[in-house]
């Protein structure tokens, strides 16, 4: 075989064969990579892109005629079917329906239909008809913005009564309770009457707000009233200009990035998860960098050159290959239960048996990820340290520097690009891991962020949300719900973005350091 090949082709041909083979394989790899990126970008982008609403009339299996408003979610050429998200009075938020193309009688853009997003994250597909307010009069739809502003005003008013009056009365009453003021003391009664008064005011405002209604109709002529106070925004998605389309995309991206998930992680935004991911990676970096660098310095500069050191070195590089779930189990068993449990017993014994540090939390997650990424940092740092020329170290010693001074002033600066490489790899790995995190602190839904304005601001014991967990969760919903699938892809896109940005930052830093020590 080899011989025949050699006979058939001259050296130049053989070389070009090798070149084309390698080029082919490289392009194959690129294609796979590109299609992955395209899939995630397209499916993730679909979450933000406004889908037009059609007026569809079709015949169902019982030969009944139907007229519905619908968004097309999937066109299957092969089986000649169309998957629709259909909105009717019974299912105003849309339900999945697969219709054979032959059964569809008519399908036309419904220019006056809108996608109405509610505050709770759900979305109604319907034709806005008119508005009604407390005066029982009916207003044309074009005063939508003005009415929404009125509702907003009432909201503000309620909010200000709640925070300024009700809350402060509450506090004063609590003080009375502590001081043991009699239940029928005049001061207390005065407060209580003020409280009821404010509460009545709130109730009055709420009922006033309740009266603001939006009437929407469906394709078959039936109609539904929607509370204006529950409407977040409204777009005529079938009738958007190019700029308007991008406006909708931008506003949805903003919602996605800044708001909390709604409807069991199928709508709303992912801010807490984004925040949790970045915070965890950040804490992990702060923990792993000094540990990794110190360990590498010890191994390459101080450790005697013997069998024991070799064994440690081999173990460290093998640690990088341990499945991540094992680290998760270790984190749970050691950090959470053993270390955390002991901390609780020592410092938080007054709140036991409710655990404080003895439960999964963001700090334990960061620590577990730090252990997981430690080998990467150690190996890369050692590599960087090895690259420091012997001559420079000798030069430093020859000027009277001690070993520590030489390490601090000469070796570490020159090895810093190597250290950065390790940190980059660690960040990339930590941002993408999900499995161990689910054991040590990442949850599908956390009521609070790990950082807030309450002392001590950074709550290391709190559980946190993570983009990876959100994606994992979304993958389970996705079999039944297209919407959550695209939210999952959008989260994927965001996670990729986060890893990309973190890497970019680190690479930029490394390039700067490299430039500084270019000659070495």
């Amino acid at each position: 075989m080899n011989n025949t090949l050699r006979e058939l082709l001259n050296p130049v041909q053989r070389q070009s064969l090798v070149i084309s083979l390698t080029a082919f394989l490289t392009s194959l790899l690129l294609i796979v990579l590109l299609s992955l990126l395209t899939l995630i970008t397209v499916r993730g982008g679909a979450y933000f892109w406004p889908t037009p609403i059609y007026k569809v009339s079709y015949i169902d299996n019982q030969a009944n005629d139907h007229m519905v408003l619908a968004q097309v979610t999937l066109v299957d050429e092969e089986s000649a079917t169309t998957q629709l998200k259909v909105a009717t009075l019974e299912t105003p938020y849309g339900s999945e329906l697969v219709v054979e193309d032959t059964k569809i009688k008519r399908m036309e853009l419904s220019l006056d239909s809108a996608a109405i997003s509610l505050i709770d994250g759900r979305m109604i597909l319907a034709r806005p008809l008119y508005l009604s307010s407390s005066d029982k009069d009916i207003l044309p739809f074009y005063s939508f913005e003005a009415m929404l502003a009125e509702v907003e005003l009432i909201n503000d008013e309620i909010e200000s009564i709640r925070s300024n009056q009700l809350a402060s009365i509450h506090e004063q009453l609590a003080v009375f309770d502590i001081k043991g003021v009699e239940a029928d003391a005049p001061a207390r009664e005065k407060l209580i009457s003020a409280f009821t008064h404010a509460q009545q005011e709130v109730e009055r405002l709420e009922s006033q707000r309740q009266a603001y209604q939006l009437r929407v109709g469906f394709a078959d002529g039936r109609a539904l009233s929607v509370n204006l106070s529950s409407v977040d925004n409204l777009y005529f998605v079938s009738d958007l200009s190019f700029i308007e389309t991008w406006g909708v995309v931008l506003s949805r991206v903003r919602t996605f990035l800044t708001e909390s998930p709604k409807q069991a992680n199928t709508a709303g935004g992912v801010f807490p998860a984004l925040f949790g991911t970045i915070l965890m990676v950040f804490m992990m970096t702060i923990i792993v960098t000094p540990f990794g660098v110190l360990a590498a310095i010890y191994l390459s500069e101080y450790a005697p050159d013997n069998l024991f050191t070799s064994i440690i070195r081999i173990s460290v590089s093998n640690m990088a290959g341990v499945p991540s779930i094992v680290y998760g189990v270790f984190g749970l068993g050691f950090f959470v239960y053993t270390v955390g449990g002991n901390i609780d017993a020592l410092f938080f014994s007054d709140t036991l048996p409710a655990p404080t540090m003895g439960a999964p939390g963001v700090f334990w997650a960061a620590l577990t990820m730090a252990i997981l990424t430690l080998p990467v940092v150690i190996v890369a740092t050692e590599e960087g340290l090895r690259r420091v020329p012997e001559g420079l170290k000798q030069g430093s010693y020859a000027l009277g520097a001690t070993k520590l001074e030489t390490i601090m002033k000469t070796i570490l600066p020159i090895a810093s690009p190597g250290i950065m490489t390790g940190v980059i790899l660690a960040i990339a790995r930590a941002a993408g891991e999900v499995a161990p995190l689910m054991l040590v602190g990442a949850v599908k839904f956390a009521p609070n962020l790990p950082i807030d304005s309450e002392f001590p601001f950074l709550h290391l014991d709190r559980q946190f949300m993570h983009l990876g967990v959100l994606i994992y969760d979304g993958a389970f919903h996705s079999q039944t719900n297209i919407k959550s699938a695209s939210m999952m892809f959008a989260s994927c896109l965001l996670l990729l973005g986060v890893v990309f940005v973190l890497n970019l930052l680190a690479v930029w830093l490394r390039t700067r350091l490299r430039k500084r020590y270019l000659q070495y």
Partner: protein
Amino acid sequence: MLKLFEHNTLHVNSIDEANTAIDVQGLNLWFGNKHVLNDISLKIAKNQITALIGQSGCGKSTLINSFNRLNDLHNSCKYTGKVVINGKDINHKKVNVSRLRSKVGMVFQRPNPFPMSIYDNVCYGLRLQGVKARRQLDDAVESALKEAALWDEVKDRLFESAGILSGGQQQRLVIARALALKPEILLLDEPTSALDPLTTLFIEELMGELKKRCTIVIVTHNMQQAARVSDFTAFFHQGSLIEYADSDTLFTMPEKNKPKITLPVVMVN
């Protein structure tokens, strides 16, 4: 002329206590099982230039590294015998190695400026000693760079990276870096072997100047260089001191004071 002649008659055996910068007494040195220096005894004269010559691998670098205890960096290094500087054995355990190294400066074969500015390079040793005052550092940098004949070339770019300098300039920077600590002894380990001939001459001239300030020990495997610059020359072969004499005797009257091994053959690199 007469004075010059007198100078030339100075013999290695006549180096007295007061004029000895380094007194090596029966130094044996091993790297692991390898016997690298074999019973070396020699006195290096103060404010003179002593050249160490010999084949590559014969232990010249190891010998001068034992003058500032740079061999301590290698765990496998063992020795017996003494190296006496200023009346004290430098291998004594009470000796402050940092102080010793700042008094015995060293320049290596390959220029090794640190990846920092020219200014910071020269200040490196002083800052280690805790000197922080800007004025003091400025003055030290200027005088060290002047002594190393580099000041005029770099005075306008003191704060640029040392990496932009040419090889010869870098080597002079390394010399200045050592001089900033006001050393008594300057060890040069093949300082010009990575440089072009003109730069080499320049540095040789510089050595003539520096000799007034400190004792110079230079390792070279260039015979002409040893003959040109040195007052004394020690010739090594496979870790042993074969010949030690004033350079004029060694290089001009070989038949009278014949080395046990013919020099030209040994010196082929």
